[in-house]
């Protein structure tokens, strides 16, 4: 275990220690509850029915109906695929793909360590360390990837997150820091 990991584990243990709330906390909660309206049992049944309707369930289909359903699903899938391709969202410019092995490259002359982190390695800094190529500040790593869309970033010196300047950025905004997207098609 490195010193940094040891510090982190000790911090987690400290954060797991119980906390002490005020000794009247429960009474305050119940007093506020008793001063307001009660939940309605009929409302429970309403939401339970709504929940049941939203759940998936087995459906019986006749052979002829099944054939029609299969044809419909195939048509929707084909249309969806052609629409996605026409929007140009699948450009793997970040990496050169060789079969299912993908090479990721970044230029960081001042870095002492660079890791590739992404969906495919659970954002682990240890999973895919990059190798410095002799004398030119270029860092590289190759990763086997199955077809799909992946988010990734470069972790420089263990703390700086960089997106790939040559790749599309992540399309959603749920991440607080830069990230990139690579799409691996059927090769």
């Amino acid at each position, binding site marked *: 275990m490195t010193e940094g990991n040891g*510090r982190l584990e000790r911090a987690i243990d400290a954060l797991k220690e119980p*906390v002490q*709330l005020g000794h009247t906390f429960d009474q305050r909660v119940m007093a*506020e509850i008793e001063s307001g309206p*009660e939940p309605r049992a009929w*409302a429970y049944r309403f939401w339970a029915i709504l929940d049941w309707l939203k759940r998936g369930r087995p459906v019986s289909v006749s052979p002829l109906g099944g054939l029609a359903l299969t044809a419909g699903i195939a048509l929707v899938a084909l249309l969806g695929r052609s629409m996605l391709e026409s929007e140009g969202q699948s450009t793997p410019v970040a990496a050169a793909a060789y079969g299912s092995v993908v090479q990721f490259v970044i230029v960081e002359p001042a870095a002492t360590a660079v890791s590739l982190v992404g*969906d495919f390695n659970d954002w682990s800094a240890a999973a895919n360390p990059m190798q410095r190529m002799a004398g030119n500040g270029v860092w590289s790593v190759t990763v086997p990837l199955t077809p799909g869309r992946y*988010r990734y970033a470069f972790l420089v010196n263990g703390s700086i997150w960089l997106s790939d300047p040559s790749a599309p950025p992540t399309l959603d905004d*749920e991440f607080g820091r830069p990230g990139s997207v690579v799409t691996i098609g059927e090769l």
Partner: protein
Amino acid sequence: MGIYDVKGESDAVLVERVLAGETDAYAGLVARYRDRLGRYAVRMLGNVADAEEALQDAFVRGYRSLARCTDPDRFGAWLFGILVNRCRTLGKQRARRHNLVVHNEPAVAKAAVAHSEDRDATREAIEWAVAQISATNREAFLLKYVEELSYDEMTVITGASVSALKMRVARAREDLRRLLAEVESD
């Protein structure tokens, strides 16, 4: 208010009793989840007063909307989701208010650390470091490592995807590791 021994009564039974009009049965659910959810709120918001406000609000909202808890056996997870939202809201409000008063909180916190006893200093250093992590990453980190939830459970509670949560946890770990090293080297 009666005294409720909640041993042997499942969440579903207590929820059913509350919905049948036994308001006091809710005290059993409060007692069952107060400590665990209280710990999350304190770690997330950084102080007991704000944590109690968020937790009380979550319990009251949970009671008023109990009819919407359609899987009463998982009342705890459902309530945790409400608390996570209350902590987000209160955290944003406190951050806005705090920014008007304290302009250099890290320096203040570090100064406090420097003048405390060793054990307190360690605890305060950890609290300071946790507070520096972005709220989104801190939330994911606490749910994963302190509350020890699975990513699937976290997805239900936070509404974020497993992939996003993994990224947030990884970033929180890196931030915390760096911040703890910084504090130790000061």
